[in-house]
Every structure is written in structure tokens, then in C-alpha cells.
């Protein structure tokens, strides 16, 4: 037995050495950061290899560990040739981004602007899916309470509706908002997405496009309007919020206990398609409305549509691998199987050949834009030192919500932490 074991181990060792020594001519190695799309990517990679003979390896980082996996993989000899770099990652990974100017994948974009450019004008990465967030609304419940989506055109309307529903919640059997949990799994919805709305209006006033050195927090006071509604017109209030999770909030909405749920188009899968979640909501009952915070002219606001998902090609890979990767990308965004997979997995994507999407939240966004409303851009992608800045903001919001501290602390966190993080970010 022992002999057998020793032999088996020796065999494994020899084989792994052989595996190390092997080097293909041109290959693609994609480090994917969306675990939910792993199976679809693997299948697509197989299909491409069968059709062209070029090996495509797809490795998926476990949820929340993309950055760590990328650091580890980039250190290897066989580093990923295709990976993700967003605005925040540009500083650390910019040197690894192959200039995509004039490549097929960029030429296939339906609109300009879906790329991240470096200071020297090179295209570092290209967006591959477009997402949207706002207030997910249960139209059926809203109707039961005696309202229509068209009744809500600004913050004052939203407040009236929400307060009325909350006051009658015992009789109706549901409340206005699902819980605005401050637990780590949920608080990014507010420190990241909600506060982005305040940043958007400030940036629009000042014509900012890029990461500013300072922010004034002019619209932080407006955030309080909506936040107060979230935390008063809801079944969960006060200290219970400090540990309430994102799953709780999703379940409250999914089980029809709340009319509004602040989240994004990625929830479509959980709420409607994924039977294992047990919500099985009807797509026609759902829609998404803009985040109204009481700003002048917000009747014309649209949803918050943007992306954080950008492909970058490893500039330090071999010439042949870079070419293989670019060919693969072109195939993904133009071929029948590629575009089908993209539409199924990611919803809307910014390419000419993109398939129409089923996702009703993306459709709601398109409808508003077609109606002449303005898009509320994703301003949070320009946050310097994202983790620390968000931590400061969410802490001030927690202190306000649970301990009744002043909302001014939120503004302090907004402004002071931004300035400090920007300094650290630029100092490197």
C-alpha cells in the first residue's frame, strides 16, 4: 500500500513538472470576476477553442477576492491576458493595460465613452456590460395601496406615497421600503450608490468628468431627505438597522412585504428568474424608478445607468497572446453565441451587435432616456480610496440613524475624507 502511495505521489510530481514545462503558442487566459457567469464563460471558451483551435482558459475569482486573485495571478509567468480594470484600478493596473485604440472590440462599441482612457490618451479598458440602479418598485403592491408609478415624479410625491403606505402598513400588510440595512453586505447600496446621486448633481453643476481633488458636498443635505424616508417608512428602524443584511432587504421585497427596494438591474435574476431563491416575482409587476432626493428639476431624472465592468488586455503578455485575446474579444461581442451569452448573463451591453435584453430594469432605463430624461451617471466610480471613504460615510450615517447624531457628520465625512483620500491616492 505504502509503495503504491509513494509511486502515485511520484507520478503526480513528474506530471506536474511536465505540465509546468508545456507552453502553447498563442492562448487566451481570462480572469473573470463574476462568479455567477463562470459556467457561461467556460462553455463559451470551449466553443471558441473547438471552432478555432486556440485554447481559452477561464479562471474565476471567488466572490470578493478578485483583486487578490489578480495580484497573485499577475505575478505568475502565465499571467492572465484578459482581466478587468475599472477607474479605481487604473492607478494600480494602468501599466498592465494594452492600448486598445483602434482594436476591433473598441470599434464594435455602439457609443463612444464606454471606455476608460489613461492620462496619455491611450484606451486602457473597454466596458462590456451596462447596469442600472434605482428604486425597484412593486407595481402590484403600489396599485393595491391606490397609486400608480406615474404618480411619483419627484421627491415630494415619493414622500407622500411612502408616508401614506407606512401609515396604513398594518391594514395593507406591507410597508413602503425594505430595510435599509447598515451591515457590510448591504451598506454599499447607500455609501456607494445613494451617495453617488449627490455626487452626480454636484459634478453636473461643476462640469466635473474625472476624479476631482475635493468635493463640496452641496447635495448631501438632499440625501438626508431620502434616507429619512428609508428609515422611517419601513418595518425596520433604529438600532435593528445596524446589523440588518442585504439578504433580509431582498427577502422583504421578494416576499411582497415592501413596495420599494433600492438596488440594481442585477437583482432581476434573483427576483424573477432564479427559482431557487423562491421569490418568483412576475416581471410585469416590477419596474424601477429614479432616486429622487429633492433636487430642482428632478422630474426629468432617469435611472442611474453606468458600469464598473471593463475589460483590459495584459500589455505584458506576448505579442501572440495579445493578438489571440483581441480576436477572442471580437468574437465574443460579434458572434451569435457570444452576444447571446452576454445578453443572458449581463443584460445590456454597449456593443453594436448586442442582443436586445429581457431585463425589465434595463428596459425601464431605456424608456426614460427615450422619453428625454437625463441619465444619472455613476459618479461613485471616481471615489478615491473607495473603501475608506465609504467606511467614513456609512459610519456617519449609522451614528445619525441609530444614535441621533447630527447629519453634519455625513457632510464632514463626505468632504474631508474625500480630500484626504485623494491626497493619498495621488501620492501613491
Amino acid at each position, binding site marked *: 500500500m505504502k509503495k503504491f502511495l509513494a509511486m502515485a505521489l511520484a507520478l503526480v510530481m513528474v506530471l506536474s513538472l511536465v505540465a509546468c514545462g508545456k507552453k502553447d503558442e498563442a492562448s487566451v487566459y481570462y480572469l473573470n470576476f463574476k462568479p455567477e457567469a463562470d459556467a457561461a464563460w467556460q462553455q463559451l471558451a470551449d466553443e471558441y477553442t473547438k471552432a478555432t483551435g486556440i485554447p481559452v482558459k477561464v479562471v474565476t475569482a471567488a466572490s470578493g477576492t478578485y*483583486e*487578490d486573485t489578480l*495580484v497573485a495571478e*499577475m*505575478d505568475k509567468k502565465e499571467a492572465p491576458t484578459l482581466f478587468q480594470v475599472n477607474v*479605481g484600478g487604473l*492607478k*494600480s493596473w494602468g501599466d498592465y493595460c494594452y492600448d486598445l485604440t483602434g482594436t476591433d472590440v473598441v470599434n464594435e462599441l455602439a457609443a463612444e465613452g464606454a471606455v476608460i482612457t489613461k492620462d496619455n490618451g491611450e484606451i486602457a479598458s473597454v466596458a462590456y456590460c451596462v447596469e442600472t440602479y434605482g428604486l425597484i418598485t412593486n407595481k402590484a403592491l403600489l396599485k393595491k395601496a391606490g397609486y400608480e408609478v406615474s404618480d411619483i415624479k419627484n421627491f415630494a410625491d415619493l414622500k407622500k406615497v411612502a408616508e401614506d403606505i407606512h401609515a396604513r402598513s398594518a391594514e395593507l400588510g406591507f410597508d413602503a421600503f425594505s430595510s435599509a440595512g447598515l451591515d*457590510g453586505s448591504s451598506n454599499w447600496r447607500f455609501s456607494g450608490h445613494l451617495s453617488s446621486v449627490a455626487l452626480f448633481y454636484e459634478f453636473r453643476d461643476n462640469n466635473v468628468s474625472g476624479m476631482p481633488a475635493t468635493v463640496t458636498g452641496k447635495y448631501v443635505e438632499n440625501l438626508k431627505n431620502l434616507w429619512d424616508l428609508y428609515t422611517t417608512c419601513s418595518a425596520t428602524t*433604529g*438600532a*435593528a438597522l*445596524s*446589523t440588518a443584511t442585504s439578504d433580509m432587504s431582498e427577502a422583504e421585497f421578494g416576499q411582497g412585504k415592501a413596495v420599494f427596494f433600492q438596488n440594481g438591474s442585477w437583482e432581476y435574476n434573483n427576483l424573477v428568474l432564479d427559482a431557487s431563491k423562491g421569490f418568483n416575482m412576475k416581471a410585469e409587476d416590477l419596474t424601477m424608478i429614479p432616486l429622487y432626493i429633492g433636487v430642482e428639476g428632478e422630474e426629468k431624472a432617469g435611472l442611474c445607468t453606468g458600469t464598473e465592468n471593463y475589460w483590459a488586455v495584459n500589455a505584458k503578455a506576448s505579442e501572440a497572446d495579445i493578438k489571440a485575446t483581441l480576436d477572442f474579444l471580437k468574437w465574443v461581442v460579434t458572434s451569435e453565441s457570444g452576444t447571446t451569452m452576454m445578453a443572458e448573463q449581463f443584460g445590456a451591453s454597449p456593443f453594436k451587435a448586442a442582443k436586445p435584453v429581457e431585463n425589465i430594469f434595463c428596459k425601464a432605463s431605456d424608456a426614460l432616456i427615450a422619453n428625454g430624461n437625463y441619465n444619472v451617471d455613476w459618479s461613485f466610480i471616481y471615489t478615491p*480610496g473607495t*473603501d*475608506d471613504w465609504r*467606511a*467614513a460615510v456609512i*459610519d*456617519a450615517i*449609522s*451614528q445619525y440613524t*441609530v*444614535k441621533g447624531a447630527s447629519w453634519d*457628520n455625513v457632510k*464632514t*465625512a463626505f468632504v*474631508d*475624507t*474625500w*480630500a*484626504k*483620500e485623494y491626497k493619498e*491616492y495621488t501620492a*501613491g
Partner: protein
Amino acid sequence: MKIRKKSRDAAALNSWLVRRPIQRMVWLFLLPTFAAFCIGFLYPFLQGIYLSFCKFRLTSDAQWAGLSNYKTAFTDPSFLHAFWYTALFAVVSLLLINVLAFTVAYALTQKMRGANLFRTVFFMPNLIGGIVLGYIWSMIFDGILIRFNTSVVMETEYGFWGLIILLCWQQIGYMMIIYIAGLQAIPEDMMEAARIDGASSWDTLIHVTIPNMMPSFTICTFLSLTNGFKLYDQNLALTEGRPFIQEGGEIIKTTEMLALNIVNAFTSQATNRGVGQAKAVIFFVVVAAISLLQLNATRSKEVQQ
């Protein structure tokens, strides 16, 4: 080499004919372990020290930066806060865990019904992982605190005492086992002599039991001190550093301990992981120095039986 006269009944292994080749080949037998030690510990450790003097994102792409990482680490208010917070935590947990563990061990070595059952029950929390414990206890604490409209993550004091309670609950059983072994190793004739001389049970405890148990104290204080300093997963699961305070843009996570601070420094820096690395080296030096001092201090009080 001198040939030793062998006795006839010595095992064949003692024969020089067998021993000499083994002695000659000693390096061969040491090699696997030594190689594992070098690959798994020595090389990463030295590489880690080297990297703490570098600016790097990828380890293959490190640039020498001198002492600048250490300067940043020492001027980082969150690191200094975490240091003193951890030191206070380590001392308080050291005292509480050892006093309580010794008391429980002393009680359970007296003749009482069900002592074995109690030992098992007290030891069991030690078998649960830190992350799980953190989440379980956060539910317990919040279940109580919610009645007062607050939560364990809302006040620094709650977070501190919450972690102390958690760690005591987890570690008392383990230390108790070590103390029980120590108590049972005290020679019965000494105890008997004390009884015959008319020593009260208090006197026996102070003058006979405790001095005889110094080796147990050495190991238990060493373990609880270093455990207190190295605490990470319980900290992450229970408070994650919350609540925070802000001063002029600086964020101080008031319940963040050293290990968590180091991990956060390592992952949140966009371009330079060297600061986190420097903090880790400082952390190692501090923990090693404190535990050596403590070992020295308690060892000197150990008595020969």
C-alpha cells in the same frame, strides 16, 4: 572513531554497524524537514522583511524604498490606535482568562459530581472556529442590546467587552485543561505534608499549589497573551472595526485590532502594499519581544519538584 564495547543484549539498532551509516547520513534525514522549513517559513519570512523596505504591488515588481514604509506605518494614527487598543485588550484578556480558567480548574479538581462532564462542556467552545463564534456572539449581543436601541457595533466599549467575553468563552476551557493537568501533577505527599503541618486550604493554595504550577502558568500566559495580540477572525466577524471616528479626514476604526489593521492596510492601498508589509514586520517584532520577556519572567519563578 572509538569502537564502543557493546553489551550482548543491546538492540541491533545500537550496533555501530547500523549507527554509523545513519550518523553519516544524518543530513539526508534532516533534508526534507529542513527544505520544508526553508520553503514554508524561512524564505517567505526573509522575503517579507525585504519587501517591507520596498514599494510594491506585485512581489515580482518591487522597488526599494528604504524606510519610507516604516515611516508611514509609524505616523498612521489608525495603526497606533490599533496598537494600544490591542495591547490593552491582550492584558485584560490575559488576566481574565487565566484567573477564570484557574478557578474553574481548581473547582473541577475538587471531588465533585459530574466533574468530567463539566470539563468537556467547558472545553467545547474551543472547537468552534473564530468567524462562526463572532457571528454567533454578535447575534447574542445584539439580541440584548436592541432592547436599548443600540448595537455592539455602535459603541467602542461594547465592541471591546464583547470581544473580551467572546475570547474568554472560547479560551477558558482550553487553559482550564492545562491547569487541570498541572494541578494533578502536584505530588500528593507535599499536599499531605501541608495538611499535617496544619496549613489552611488558602495557605496550601498560595504556598504549595501555585508555586508547583508555575510551568502551567508559563504556558497559559504565553498562549493567552499571544492569542490576544494575534486575534483576527473574531474581530472581523464581531465588529469589523466599527464604530469609526473621523478626525480631519482620518478614519480610525475604534475596535480594529493590529492583525485586522494590517490586513486592511495590505488590501486597501492602491499601489503600495509595502506599508502593510512593514506593519506586519513591526507586529512580529513586538509580539516576539513581549512573549520572550513574559516567558523569561514566568520561567524564573518555576520551581523544581
